């Protein structure tokens, strides 16, 4: 089990009802973290449309998360 801090943005934050939470999860990759949060809070958004960062660096969904990491979940963007 790993202790992971998850930060939610925009729609994801609204779904979760919190901007940030620290969870104890049995996960390997960033994609696993995303799946866990979907089970927890719901979302039909596929990972392919979303982006993820680990400890303030953009990452692939296949990136391995380590105990103590902060994972940022970004729904589809629309700047400008």
């Amino acid at each position: 089990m790993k202790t992971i801090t998850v930060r939610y943005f925009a729609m994801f934050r609204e779904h979760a009802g919190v901007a940030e939470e620290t969870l104890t999860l049995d996960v390997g990759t960033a994609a696993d973290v995303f799946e866990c949060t979907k089970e927890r809070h719901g979302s039909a958004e596929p990972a392919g449309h979303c982006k993820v960062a680990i400890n303030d660096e953009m990452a692939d969904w296949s990136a391995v998360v380590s105990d103590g990491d902060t994972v940022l979940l970004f729904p589809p963007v629309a700047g400008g």
Partner: protein
Amino acid sequence: MLSMTTAAIDPDALRKKLFDAAAGGYCAFEGWVRNENDGHTVLRLEYEAYEPLAIIEGDKIFAEAKREFPFLHALCVHRTGMLEIGDCAVWVGVASPHRDEAFRACRYIIDELKVRLPIWKKEHYADGHSGWVNCERCAQHGRAGSPT
């Protein structure tokens, strides 16, 4: 260089920062909050950004644009928070010796910025509903699961 602000954007002040005696062409783009999207009457737009990564990604976009379309100076300011109709949400300006690079770099910067920066916008509609732009599936879910 990209920066974020919650205050009103001042295009004229930004434009003056790009002045250069070697510049013959200047191109600017502004994104304004408009009163309609996809058939819905929009009352206002709410922008949220994750600034630390927006700045980093913005720097990458500027470097790519400069490599591809060599310009002298470029700036971009993106506003966040609650914006009203007619407000300037984003401003991009580029100065270069000739106009072609100015137009192309300006277009490249705004195009990339819209799809790569961690910035989200929520439309507030006349019918009382609101929705996150570009987030159709999670918006569908949102409608089914929670009345946001």
